[in-house]
């Protein structure tokens, strides 16, 4: 079998596996639903997620250890992930193939020639790496000289990957300057301020990107008629932007094949840096050949196999091996006979990218969204870490939103700030309910533990967690200007009815409000009172919520009414008013109050509130357990 056929089989297999996991992330107990399927496997294989969470947190969470296997295999085999496994890469290759049909050899060679712009992805990688790094710097800064020296060496190694960086005086000079900058910076970091590490890479990291696009755009569209992934139509706020990014990245393949892989992909850049050193690589076995350019024409990575090859760009599509009429291209341990070239990364640009990355989180946080101007609408799922720790872990992959049974978990839009873009936030109006009391699904599917895998007991504050109490997402606040019993003399208390905690966090106080004051009694007999002026709506006062109050202050429930006569329930102590006396019709209102000590911020009240637009009871993130600084109550 031809090697490219094997490669295609592998690509199709892993793409199908990926799609399968997207479907299998359905909450349920049937064999094709979420019951042990490793639905995070692709996210875990992606070493960029593992590396960056290692940088931000100092640990590799559970399944992210898979990323190490990918890294080691890349050191041995080269960028096998890009060419053989990555589902996003397979999609790009397919669209690129569509766009390349009927193109002449010359056109193909032109489209697949190496370009300077391919270096952009390395700068993006440097940017994301640096954006994630300030906490690490801080930690290193705190551990004295030897560690700082080690850090400087590490950075020097990064430099070594750049052009002219290896060995020599300039190398040691750069390392020294960096070490000094480092210590100074660490000292500054120790003094606080808006600095911090942020896992921004999830925005462009290909596996989170394609997972998010599947979960929040393609699957909801495909499932609207099928109803496999969810029992009813599912909505995701701002899905259009996620879809646009996905569609644009696919359509760009019509311009240049594998556009995303060549120019944008920060994961590809990481593999490229390692792929340079890989044990096996693609290359020519002899420098001379017939120069037919067939290999260059079909090269997916734009790494110029016919000439001086760029191993960092090679995605191991192995098309060159397949098409070479002279059979001078091989995949072996020897470097190409025609020579190899490292990525043309100037030190200055890498430093600029690193600097920009370091500056990005402080710049994003200068707006104060993580500090004094925090957004109370940002209600995070149960088990979510405190905001800065959360942002150091969240990949924006959308797995939590995919698995959420009610659809209350939504991708945060731009209004929550750039740094929170596409991270999970609760929107109580869009799903089928608020956050369900006994559900902890999101934390158990989160690949990076930005949402901790809590137990139901911990969520409810039972058993061993009784002392710390339930996990609160926020607190419900009643908008008395919109609430029917508060503002409009209408009974309601749907919020109280649906509050799922016991005892309820919403309680009521009874209030009798006069709706028809000062009615004159013209005739009264037992519980039957005729009043003037009449003009009552027949039956309207007989709903069980209206009372008649006599001058002596005693009141009786109205059972029924005609246009001018009230029929009252007999009550002990009720004295029939004499003609000429005044009576009032009152409405009995149960006005809701929230007990913040009991409210867990689940948002079920908000979801059920009959004021259908802007709800009269709304949950905001005050008193959320995850953020001490947002607490509301005295302990």
């Amino acid at each position: 079998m031809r090697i490219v056929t094997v490669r295609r089989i592998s690509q199709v297999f892993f793409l199908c596996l990926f799609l399968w996991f997207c479907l299998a992330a359905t909450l349920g107990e049937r064999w094709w639903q979420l019951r042990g399927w490793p639905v995070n496997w692709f996210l875990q294989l992606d070493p960029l997620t593992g590396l960056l969470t290692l940088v931000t947190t100092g640990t590799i969470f559970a399944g992210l250890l898979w990323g190490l296997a990918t890294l080691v295999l890349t050191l041995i085999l080269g960028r096998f992930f890009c060419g053989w496994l990555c589902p996003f890469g397979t999609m790009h290759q397919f669209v690129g193939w569509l766009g390349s049909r009927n193109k002449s050899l010359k056109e193909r060679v032109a489209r697949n020639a190496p370009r300077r712009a391919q270096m952009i992805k390395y700068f993006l990688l440097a940017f994301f790496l640096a954006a994630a790094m300030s906490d690490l710097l801080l930690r290193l800064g705190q551990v004295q000289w030897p560690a700082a020296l080690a850090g400087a060496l590490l950075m020097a190694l990064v430099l070594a990957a750049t052009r002219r960086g290896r060995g020599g005086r300039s190398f040691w000079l750069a390392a020294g300057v960096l070490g000094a900058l480092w210590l100074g910076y660490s000292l500054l970091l120790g003094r606080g301020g808006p600095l911090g590490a942020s896992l921004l890479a999830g925005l462009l990291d290909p596996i989170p990107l394609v997972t998010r696009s599947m979960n929040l755009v393609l699957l909801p569209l495909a499932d609207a008629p099928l109803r496999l992934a969810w029992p009813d139509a599912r909505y995701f706020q701002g899905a259009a932007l996620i879809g646009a990014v996905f569609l644009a990245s696919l359509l760009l393949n019509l311009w240049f094949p594998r556009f995303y892989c060549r120019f944008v992909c920060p994961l590809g850049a990481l593999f490229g840096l390692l792929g340079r050193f890989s044990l096996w690589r693609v290359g020519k076995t002899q420098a001379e050949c017939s120069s037919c350019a067939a290999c260059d024409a079909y090269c997916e990575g734009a790494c110029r196999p016919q000439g001086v090859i760029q191993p960092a760009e090679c995605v191991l599509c192995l098309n060159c091996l397949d098409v070479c009429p002279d059979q001078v291209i091989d995949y072996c341990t020897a470097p190409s006979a025609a020579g190899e070239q490292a990525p043309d990364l100037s030190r200055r640009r890498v430093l600029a990218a690193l600097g920009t990355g370091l500056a990005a989180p402080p710049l994003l946080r200068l707006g104060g969204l993580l500090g004094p101007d925090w957004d109370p609408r940002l209600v995070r799922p149960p088990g979510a870490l405190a905001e800065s720790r959360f942002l150091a872990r969240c990949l924006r992959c959308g797995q939590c939103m995919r698995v959420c049974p009610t659809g209350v978990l939504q991708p945060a839009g731009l209004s929550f700030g750039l740094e929170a873009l596409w991270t999970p936030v609760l929107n109580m109006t869009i799903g089928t309910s608020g956050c369900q009391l006994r559900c902890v699904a999101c934390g158990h599917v989160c690949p990076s533990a930005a949402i901790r895998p809590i137990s139901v007991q911990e969520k409810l504050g039972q058993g061993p967690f009784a002392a710390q109490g339930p996990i609160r997402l926020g607190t419900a606040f009643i908008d008395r200007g919109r609430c029917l019993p508060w503002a409009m003399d209408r009974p309601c208390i749907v919020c109280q009815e649906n509050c799922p905690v016991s005892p309820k966090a919403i309680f009521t106080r009874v209030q009798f409000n006069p709706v028809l004051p000062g009615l004159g009694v013209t005739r009264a007999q037992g519980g039957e009172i005729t009043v003037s002026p009449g003009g009552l709506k027949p039956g309207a006062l007989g709903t069980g919520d209206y009372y008649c109050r006599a001058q002596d202050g005693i009141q009786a429930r109205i059972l029924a009414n005609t246009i001018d006569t009230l029929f009252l329930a007999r009550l002990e102590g009720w004295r029939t008013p004499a003609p000429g006396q005044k009576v009032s019709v009152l409405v009995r209102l149960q006005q809701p109050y929230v007990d913040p000590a009991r409210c867990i911020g689940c948002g079920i009240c908000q979801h059920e509130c009959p004021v259908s637009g802007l709800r009269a009871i709304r949950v905001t993130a005050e008193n959320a357990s995850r953020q001490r600084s947002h607490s509301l109550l005295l302990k």
Partner: protein
Amino acid sequence: MSPLLPPEEMDRRDFLRRAGLAGLGLAAAGVLGWRAYDGQGPLGSGEVGPQVKLPSYAVPGQAQKVALVKGSHRVPALRAGLEALGGIKAFVQPGDQVALKVNAAFASPPALGATTHPELVTEMVRLCLDAGAKRVVVTDNPINDPASCFELSGIGPAARAAGAQVVLPSAEAFQPTSLAGGRLIKDWPLLYGPLKGVNKLIGLAPVKDHHRSRASVTMKNWYGLLGGRRNIFHQDINGIIAELGRLVTPSLAVADGVASLVKNGPTGGSLEDIKPTDTLILGTDQVAVDALAVGLLGLTPAQVPYLGLAVAAGVGALDLKPLRVELG
């Protein structure tokens, strides 16, 4: 592409062809204008489309029967109650299609008493199938997420295991209905899909405290047949329950008070909210069933306004004497 009109070749045939084309265009534009012209503009949203109407599911000859069973186990209590009313065969004939309207409102485990107990569902499904029912459908439009409600309450697995079909509400399952002479139920979405083809309807409801209507039993249970933003009806909770009683005439209504949710209802949430009341009430008169059931919550029928409204609307009677069965 050749030019449309090569000037040197313009002849009579060409002219006629073009004239014909223009004529056709003129005719098409005329027909389109004539057919599609709307001088009035769209009507307001007051338009009412076709409405569905729920039939009466009452079984002839069984009117005004109520049984009250004292017992601490649901399955024998249900059987004994049905025996007292003439046996399941009095209600379900071979070939019948039966719908069980359960209360699956909340994603809450059975022990917390906020939803119909799965044991009761299992037994009722089994009895219906044994009596020869062709099909048993179990349905509700819950308040919390529907799929979670049916799974967590245990109703879904129990019903499926017993051989029933569980139908979750989907957007297509709702069709507008209007109650004849109704004040509240006008052009309102009704969970009609699962009731298609059904000729027997049985309500299975737990006995629950309700802060707004005082009690939630078999009549309040029909709330789960409404769709849309039904919570606006809470402004007139008693009125809507009475209208639901008029809208739905079941074959049988069952109130499960073996354990009652006596406080913090209708959601519950703690075992402390549950009280063993060892009573199962069933009958063909839903008002009578509810009137007996509110006693388990420590209420008299006079304290529960919806019962009075339902009696006034002719839904049923408060003072039916129940057939009493005592189980050990």
